[in-house]
């Protein structure tokens, strides 16, 4: 079920270097959401900017009571340009139009019988994983988070994962926290040690996703990648968000409706 509704801002907190957590009241959307799916959110109560911004579900709930189910969801966002800059000015009580849940998220249960799902996040690509980790824990599936960022200031939300019983592996490009370098280094080690026991879910910038896809391909480990693109509509009509399909007849897949999460072998990028 898909909803086009007005959502109310409940909170908008700064968490790190230009990284914010936005809480929105939208029971219909919150109840229908799945990890890896997204909403198209108006960035500001004013008519500018024209297009809505795609934003992933970061956390759902907490619910008012078990009977009513969740009523709110959270978005973790980073200032990237004019629209996300405007989002930082949102205050409780503001209303925005919102369309969602959209797209195909991560599989709730991994495909084969892996012992562990490895979540690989690059920067703000962390956004879908608190919700994902919570669902995996609910299904009794083991998970590990590998979380890379430029520097310590961009690392947020580590406690969420600790509360879910995880011990995130942190990597920064400048070494200010955790291991120095890129997330693909610890990923390559895990693939090396346990190639039959893991499946990888990744979200982050394109260069990181390409590197993750390569490590997984070479190690024979299945991977799911959450892709990004400029998305004018988010529901499959503008054809603005194509990614090349990895199939003999060629052509493009729509990131918004065929994705945003794809199996590594579905796409050529």
């Amino acid at each position, binding site marked *: 079920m898909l909803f*086009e509704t007005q959502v109310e801002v409940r909170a908008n907190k700064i968490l790190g270097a230009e990284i914010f957590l936005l809480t929105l009241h939208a029971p219909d959307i919150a109840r229908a959401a799945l990890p890896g799916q997204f909403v198209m959110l108006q960035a500001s109560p004013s008519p500018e900017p*024209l297009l809505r911004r795609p934003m992933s579900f970061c956390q759902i709930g907490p619910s008012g009571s078990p009977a009513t189910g969740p009523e709110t969801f959270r978005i973790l966002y980073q200032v990237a340009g004019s629209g996300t800059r405007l989002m930082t000015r949102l205050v409780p009580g503001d209303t925005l139009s919102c369309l969602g849940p959209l797209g195909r998220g991560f599989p709730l249960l991994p495909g084969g019988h892996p012992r562990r799902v490895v979540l690989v996040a690059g920067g703000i690509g962390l956004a879908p994983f608190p919700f994902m980790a919570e669902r995996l824990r609910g299904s009794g599936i083991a998970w590990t988070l590998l979380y890379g960022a430029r520097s310590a200031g961009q690392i947020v939300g580590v406690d969420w994962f600790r509360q879910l019983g995880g011990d995130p592996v942190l990597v920064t490009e400048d070494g200010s926290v955790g291991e120095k370098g890129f997330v693909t280094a610890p990923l390559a080690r895990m693939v090396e040690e346990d190639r039959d026991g893991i499946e990888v879910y990744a979200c982050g910038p394109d260069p990181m996703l390409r590197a993750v896809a390569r490590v997984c391909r070479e190690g024979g480990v299945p991977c799911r990648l959450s892709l990004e693109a400029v998305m004018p*509509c988010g529901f499959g009509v503008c054809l603005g*968000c194509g990614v090349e399909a990895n199939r003999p007849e060629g052509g*493009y897949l729509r990131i918004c409706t065929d994705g945003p999460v794809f199996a590594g072998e579905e796409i050529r990028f």
Partner: protein
Amino acid sequence: MSAPMNLAVKLGPLHLKNPVLTASGTFGYGEEFEPFLDLNRLGGFVVKGLSCRPRPGNRSPRTWETPAGMLNSIGLENCGIDRFLEEKLPRLRKYRTAIIANLFGETIEEYCEVARKADAGEGLAALELNISCPNTARGGIDFGCDPEATREVVRAVRDVTSLPLMVKLTPNVTDIRPLAEAAQQGGADILSLVNTFFGMAIDIRSRRPRLSTRHGGLSGPAIKPMAIYLVDRVRAATDLPIVGIGGIRSGEDAVEFMIAGASAVQVGTGNFVDPLCSVHVLEEIETFLEKEGIQELRGLIGSLPR
């Protein structure tokens, strides 16, 4: 509650129950909007541009947002006329609204082939010809930028179809009037305008174009004043019914086009911002007429003194 207002309009041979259509390339094949709105509410909808054979479209990035608008270079990706007729159209026939096929080609023969097939398809109310396409036989200059080519292609298509024929004009010309006249001489029943304006954006850090194709087409509220200007110019050059297109997001935008001379409108980019935009435009036109005490659309259309 007053009696429902009669918003029916006649565009030459094409009769619409209301003047709100959706624009090609912004409404998919119609079915994508089924979760959001009752397609029967619309005066009609124009489907994604169709060609003889399927087209994969351009490489990404294909879109970029600009102030009050967006650039696109989708590259006319579509499933091809055959698949549209076999798979999409049969499902759409149940709707009591005008389904309009938007067609394009790269040669006159291709335009005729796709039009002949569309003409044989059951359930189409009209054809809209997109002539903002490079004419390969004439060194790639768009059909719609050349009055001679416009006349020729419209005449050739006119000969292979008896459906109402709408010709969609490009704004990328110095003077639109000779093109409007050429389309009329070729046998167009209706003129729709405008298609997107050529535009470009550059990433100043990487110093590369934002679109993979370097240039693209600009749409959205940013183009509305230019589109209204062109409706005013075309109205002075022909007496064919006009369908106004360009940046329409509200009933008031639509009314502005109608006062300028448009008998109907198409909502384009607005559908991306709000999938219910077309229905809101319709409701707001009704509200406007009621508030202003206008009984019939005829009192509005072309009411701007010439």
